């Protein structure tokens, strides 16, 4: 090796080391920035909702009237609306997302059809929610209305059930994509072992793949739920926006995110604005709590 070559090599490697440390530092900086952002968000929400907390106290959480004219605010109908639509959407979407995950992960992992289906499902997540809202209002609502006439409930067409249906469509890709990746990561020796013992494909899925991937599948569900809790535009267009507690899943209602989006721009006095921000705080806390419970469950799965 001659000196010249050695020199350039050391120079480039010291350059590499410098680059490495810059890279590491920038990663840390980005990480800290995210934490600061969330903390700042939380603090802002708390500070801005102080007037409402002082005025209304804890009663805010369980009182049922939302009356901007008389400055009476109760979040209960919207809390119920948010939880009801999100969980209903989750229940509707799970069979579809799991079926897609199993088909694309196990039955048909390669080839043009698989790719085509995979891209289509991912496209569902990329469609702007206002498009879903209009589709819901113009296509889904009349269908639900004729269904409601058959069932014999008041045929509004819009309401909790319609909102849940739209949400279900919107959240399918999250659980489906994550589930598919998880299923493809199942080590083939495990599957081959089961096959060699004479297991059928269904038995392999049931006894090997699903137990192996359950924490991942659950994480996908959690991701879907997070999306459903915060969705605003599509929901507000089809939920009916009444500030009463829904009397059935076909009745109209409202969600926290939708109330904020509807009323924030024209909230013309301090307490009103503050009550809306506190609604944001409640939504934030609900999301955090649900995520924490979810993490707990995932941990339990993986410890077994």
């Amino acid at each position, binding site marked *: 090796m001659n000196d010249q070559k050695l020199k350039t090599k050391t120079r480039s490697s010291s350059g590499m080391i410098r*680059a490495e440390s810059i890279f590491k530092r920038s990663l840390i900086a980005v990480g800290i920035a995210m934490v600061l952002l969330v903390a700042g968000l939380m603090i802002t929400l708390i500070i801005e909702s102080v007037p409402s907390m002082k005025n209304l106290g804890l009663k805010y959480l369980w009182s049922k009237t939302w009356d901007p004219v*008389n400055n009476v605010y109760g979040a209960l109908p919207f809390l119920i609306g948010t939880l009801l639509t999100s969980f209903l959407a989750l229940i509707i979407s799970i069979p579809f997302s799991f079926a897609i995950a199993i088909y694309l992960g196990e039955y048909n992992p390669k080839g043009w059809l698989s790719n085509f289906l995979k891209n289509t499902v991912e496209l569902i997540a990329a469609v702007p929610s206002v498009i879903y809202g209009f589709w819901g*209002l113009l296509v889904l609502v009349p269908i639900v209305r004729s269904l409601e006439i058959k069932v014999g409930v008041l045929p509004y*067409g819009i309401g909790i059930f319609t909102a849940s249906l739209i949400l279900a469509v919107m959240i399918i890709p999250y659980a489906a994509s994550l589930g598919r990746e998880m299923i493809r990561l199942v080590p083939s020796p495990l599957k081959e072992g089961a096959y060699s013992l004479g297991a059928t494909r269904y038995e392999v899925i049931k006894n090997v793949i699903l137990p192996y991937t359950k924490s991942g599948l659950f994480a996908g569900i959690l991701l879907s739920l997070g999306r459903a809790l915060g969705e605003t535009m599509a929901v507000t267009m089809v939920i*009916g*926006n009444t500030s009463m507690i829904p009397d059935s899943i076909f009745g109209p209602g409202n969600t926290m995110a939708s109330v904020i*989006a509807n009323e924030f*721009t*024209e909230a013309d006095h301090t307490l009103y604005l503050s009550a809306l921000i506190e609604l944001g705080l409640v939504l934030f806390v609900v999301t955090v709590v649900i995520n924490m419970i979810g993490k707990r469950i995932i941990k339990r799965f993986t410890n077994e």
Partner: protein
Amino acid sequence: MQTFFKSLKQGLAASVLLAAAITNVQLVTAQDDKTLLGAGSSFINPLFSKMFADYNAKTGIQVNYQSIGSGGGILQLTNKTVDFGASDGPLNDEQTAKFGVPVLHIPQASGAVVITYNLPGNNNNINLTPDIIADIFLGKIKTWNDARITSVNKRMNIPGLPILVAHRSDGSGTTNIFTNYLSKVSAEWKSKVGSAGAVNWPAGLGGKGNEGVAGLVKQTPGAVGYVELIYALQNKMDYAKIQNKKGKFIIPSIASVTSAGNVKMPDDAKIFITDTDAPDGYPIAGFTWVLIYKEQNYNGRSKDRATKLLKLLWWNIHEGQAFTQPLNYSPLSKEAQKIAEKILKSATYDGKAIL
């Protein structure tokens, strides 16, 4: 790795440039005396766009108007980030207190709210009286063939459908005007619900925006809702004739809305012209106001800038009125225009009149 760094660097550089560009734009607009800033009412936005484009062509002065809603416009004027705000309702007590200094309301044009409905059959322009409207929106009249409705619509063939009330779910000037009207004509509405940009509706479903309400009404036979007159005209929707204070059934139109404003006005122009005394006036109408500080010397603004603003607003209530009718807005009545002139003349710079 190296390409990654390269793209990272480029990304950083790009975002820095972008941030610089954004702050730069803000600085330029704040300092440039050829550009006036306004924000507020989305209802008046189409008219303002047309007016300000024409004003720019004539004078070279550019007006940058952000249609962010009346509440947002008032907030921006409170924070002194714009030269003028625009609102579909006058300032309430809390907002006035927040300003702390006198703010002028200058009427620009008026609009109306129409009752739209979906009744199969040839039911164009049914008649409605104030107490019928109030009881429908209170949820007390539940079917269309209610004796009170049929008694004022003897020639119509009104089906016996259940009534579904549709209202705005978002806070809006439209709701403010409509609930203000209902509070004036119905004591029960006033005590139970009251008037504001968003209220606690005793009945019905909420749709987002004019299009949300219109969507509900168009889809559901028997539905009734309220939308802006402009929206109803543009979308060829059915709307009701409404009985005014003098007992006449008035069809909402540009002329009948202008007439509604032809009443004795207070000197500050802060008036809801709902339930008007004018014999040919349509009763559910209201002004959109431009809001400015009475004393224009604040935040180190130049006298030149204040004068430009006042000249623009003077033009708005005179030559600018020519653009109202083609866009389905109702121009100011003679009475309203006179008051608006007086208000503009009361604006000062260092205590001295500007115009």
